[in-house]
């Protein structure tokens, strides 16, 4: 293991972890440097599998997964201290948290170019993995799994598909949590989900069925996505459903959870307290039926530009 990447102390950590951890960079193509945080298993690091974890977005940090989901540390509300997570996944696996693609979190590119696509991300993540096993050759023979969530539903299988053709990595499988697997199925199923959870009523449901799949023999087989490409009435009504799910103040990530910051019926706004832009359009690639609001998209790009006030 690379001594220079060993994390010897962490501010705010008032207890001594019973595992080693490393943080540093893995080089990919085009002068891109991907930040990783590797926490060894607290059980049997020499025999437990190695698991890569990636959060989604696209463009969101895996340190979110590390520090708020299943990593060994939980940041306390003060933003200064770290508590233990008794349900950390590194109790049974050696976990790599990779911030990818470049531009996410602490990962960066020498040329400052952060445009990318699914295949390039998979290719760079594969290069990063090769760099990881060069840094940590003692883990090369371990069972290896790729895991992730959300847009990780794309990152994980595309990376697995590349790694499958690399005999140097001992890939055994992958794990996808709440992943985007298929656009049409995700778009279709949310309509059923909304109806079955009481978000839309009987009359809207009947309207949807009649305009989106007029010939369907049963309500259980309506292909709303296909219908939206044929009927303007279907598209309009589906867009309203998507608006309800994504931008009505409901917490799109947890129907029964509260929405941090409150239920604001706005698609793009500046949160002065948090000093950031908030947008339900962040995940616009998820959703083909939510009408693209060009003003929101433009605002999103402007918010990302350093030299535009």
């Amino acid at each position, binding site marked *: 293991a690379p001594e220079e990447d060993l994390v010897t102390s962490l501010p705010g950590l008032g207890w001594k972890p019973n595992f080693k951890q490393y943080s540093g960079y893995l080089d990919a193509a085009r002068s891109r440097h991907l930040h990783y945080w590797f926490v060894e298993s607290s059980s049997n690091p020499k025999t437990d599998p190695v698991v890569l974890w990636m959060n989604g977005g696209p463009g969101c940090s895996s340190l979110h997964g590390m520090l708020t989901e299943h990593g060994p540390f939980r940041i306390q509300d003060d933003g200064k201290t*770290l508590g233990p997570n008794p349900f950390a996944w590194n109790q049974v696996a050696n976990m790599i948290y990779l911030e990818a693609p470049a531009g996410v979190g602490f990962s960066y590119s020498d040329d400052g170019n952060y445009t990318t696509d699914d295949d390039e991300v998979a290719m760079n993540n594969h290069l990063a993995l090769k760099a990881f096993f060069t840094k940590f050759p003692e883990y090369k023979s371990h069972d290896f799994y790729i895991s992730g969530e*959300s847009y990780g539903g794309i990152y994980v299988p*595309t990376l697995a598909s590349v790694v499958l053709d690399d005999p140097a990595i001992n890939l055994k*499988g992958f794990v996808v949590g*709440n992943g985007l697997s298929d656009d049409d199925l995700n778009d279709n199923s949310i309509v059923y989900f909304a109806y079955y959870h009481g978000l839309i009523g009987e009359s809207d449901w009947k309207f949807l069925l009649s305009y989106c799949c007029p010939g369907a023999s049963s309500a259980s087989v309506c292909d709303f996505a296909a219908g939206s490409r044929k009927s303007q009435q279907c598209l309009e009504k589906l867009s309203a459903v998507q608006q309800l799910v994504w931008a009505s103040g409901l*917490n*799109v990530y947890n129907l029964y959870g509260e929405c941090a910051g409150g239920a604001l019926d706005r698609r793009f706004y500046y949160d002065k307290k948090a000093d950031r832009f*908030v*947008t339900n359009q962040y995940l616009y690639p*998820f959703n083909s039926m939510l009408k693209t609001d060009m003003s929101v998209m433009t605002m999103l790009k402007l918010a990302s530009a350093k030299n535009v006030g």
Partner: protein
Amino acid sequence: VSPPCVNETSAKIYLNTPAVRTALHIAAKALTWDVCSGPVGAGYHRLYTTMRPQYEKALSRKMRILVYNGDVDMACNFLGDEWFVDQLDAKNPQQRKSWYYEAADGTKQVAGFYKAFDQITFVTVRGAGHMVPSDKPRPALKMFLSFIQRQPF
């Protein structure tokens, strides 16, 4: 830029503390840490609308796959992923069953439901949203352990 309804203030404060950046060996060139990157999100080009070919390739190469969903998430809802797994026509489909975990008070509780095939298993986590390990850490760990250690659900 932040996704809606997510509070990342404490993570942002912690990870941007100079001493933390030093402890983690963060490069001077790295930007201020944020949960999601506006430039990456805005400049991202999607190439795929389905992952079916990638799953089929993995299954043909005898990979083990776990697809899990918190069942109250709406961004990537469980129904769509269950349909996706069903449509892969994986071998030897088993009946959909409940799975269990031991709650903090020692009682046995229903953690969710699962459907197993030869190499792929679809699992729901009852009452969890998009970020399953945050919402239901105890069943999430049990699920992960069962998969990694090849134990039955």
